[in-house]
């Protein structure tokens, strides 16, 4: 027994797995095995190289099957951010005659928003208070002005709300605009829609190595490389090493096989957390109540300090996340919470990893009222 089931040492509960999950034990095993067996250059024609090529092909087939793509549509990239950058820049380059503008929901992953801003123009589409994209505004955005690319997430990785992907895909198809679907927070946790022209995924969010991202481009998608030609294995510069790719594929198969059980089980735990957070005085539980990711939950506590909440939970053995400005390196609040028009301070964000122990969640719920009251006492806001 070298690795605890939920990736946390005894006495610790790792509940910050929304975008950065602990490496699954089975992925760790695959990684170590591949260091012995899958290390060679897959372009070489000797036995070691052919063995590496075979393993890489198998990994590509497994990932393709899991995300609803064909193997030749799948490219492995170094990180999810790189996959997003390559998707955005490559489609904008191929469609530069249309105009450089990309349209994205205001709550996309910052990698998407940053890539679109960097590559050209970005027009954001507003969301409602639940974090769901405004379809009428999306229609207006993709039809009012030339649009080279539309970007939408499957579900929001900070608040869990699922997006109306099928309807958005119809809008894009009618307008003749390719759709980049970002499954960064969703792949491995929910079944993905197949209505995309480009798809991006993050192995780090499903329990694989975080240095593996996935970019899928349909054969019909117009895309051009924006960097010099590479190694002839992947179409995007700086591909991850083969052992990491194999571990990512193994982790995705494992996560996919457990969706039917781990999805509802974690959704039920999330519901319990949302109910407990709602019972707190002056709290705001955000995101859609039902149509949401099974493992992500977030809420804010009025007059509380996000960093103090995070520290207090950490001292009690819980690793949690936060979208509050004081917990961000930029000292800016989460753009997702801000776009939704909900409270950004006193924010706690949880991502329940695959196999999370029920006792961990129960202990978190038990500690919650005391931690929040303690932080508010320190700030002297009890009478507000």
């Amino acid at each position: 027994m070298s690795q605890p089931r939920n990736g946390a040492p005894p006495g610790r509960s790792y509940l910050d797995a929304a975008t950065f999950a602990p490496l699954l034990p089975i992925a760790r095993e695959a990684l170590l095995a591949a260091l012995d067996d899958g290390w060679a250059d897959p372009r070489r024609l000797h036995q070691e190289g052919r063995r590496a090529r075979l393993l890489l092909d198998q990994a590509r087939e497994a990932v393709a099957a899991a995300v609803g793509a064909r193997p030749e549509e799948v490219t492995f990239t170094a990180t999810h951010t790189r996959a997003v950058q390559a998707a955005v820049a490559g489609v904008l380059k191929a469609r530069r005659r249309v105009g450089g503008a990309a349209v994205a929901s205001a709550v996309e992953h910052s990698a998407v928003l940053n890539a679109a801003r960097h590559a050209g123009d970005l027009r954001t589409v507003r969301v409602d208070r639940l974090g769901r994209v405004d379809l009428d505004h999306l229609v207006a955005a993709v039809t009012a002005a030339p649009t080279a690319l539309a970007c939408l997430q499957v579900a929001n990785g900070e608040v869990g709300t699922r997006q109306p992907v099928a309807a958005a895909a119809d809008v894009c198809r009618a307008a003749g605009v390719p759709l980049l679907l970002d499954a960064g927070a969703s792949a491995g946790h929910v079944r993905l829609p197949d209505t995309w022209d480009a798809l991006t995924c993050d192995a780090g969010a499903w329990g694989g190595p975080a240095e593996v991202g996935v970019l899928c481009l349909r054969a019909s998608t117009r895309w051009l490389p924006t960097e010099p030609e590479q190694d002839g294995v992947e179409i995007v510069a700086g591909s991850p090493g083969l052992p990491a790719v194999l571990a990512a594929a193994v982790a995705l198969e494992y996560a996919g096989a457990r969706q039917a059980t781990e999805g509802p089980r974690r959704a039920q735990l999330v519901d319990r957390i949302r109910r407990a957070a709602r019972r707190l005085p002056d709290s705001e539980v955000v995101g859609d109540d039902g149509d949401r990711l099974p493992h992500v939950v977030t809420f804010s506590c009025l007059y509380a300090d996000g960093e103090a909440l995070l520290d207090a939970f950490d001292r009690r053995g819980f690793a949690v996340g936060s979208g509050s400005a004081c917990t961000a390196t930029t000292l800016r609040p989460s753009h997702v919470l801000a776009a939704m028009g909900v409270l950004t301070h006193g924010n706690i964000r949880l991502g329940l990893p695959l196999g999370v122990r029920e006792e961990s969640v129960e202990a978190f719920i038990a500690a919650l009222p005391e931690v929040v009251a303690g932080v508010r006492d320190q700030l002297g806001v009890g009478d507000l």
Partner: protein
Amino acid sequence: MTERVRDLVLDVRGKRCPQPVIELGRAARDAPDGLVVVVLATDPAAEPDIAAWCRMRGHHLLHQGWNEDASQLVSRVRIRRTPQAAVPAAPPPGGPGTPPG
């Protein structure tokens, strides 16, 4: 002639979240109905948080905007002494604001 209640200026420039909203909460605690509090803030979190505080507490956000070089946020809040319950499912007014900077 009723004497018009003068606006209260609350200067929380340089203070970081959650301090601006805490000070607004303190100012509102003893304020009469209808008082307008003008909040001057520099913290980017003050924009969504003052708006959310008004919604949660039933006060009325009259206006909110950054100055030209996005260095200072002015929020005008009318205090309501009979706050109504917040309506969490309503869409945010006017869509996403453009963050400063």
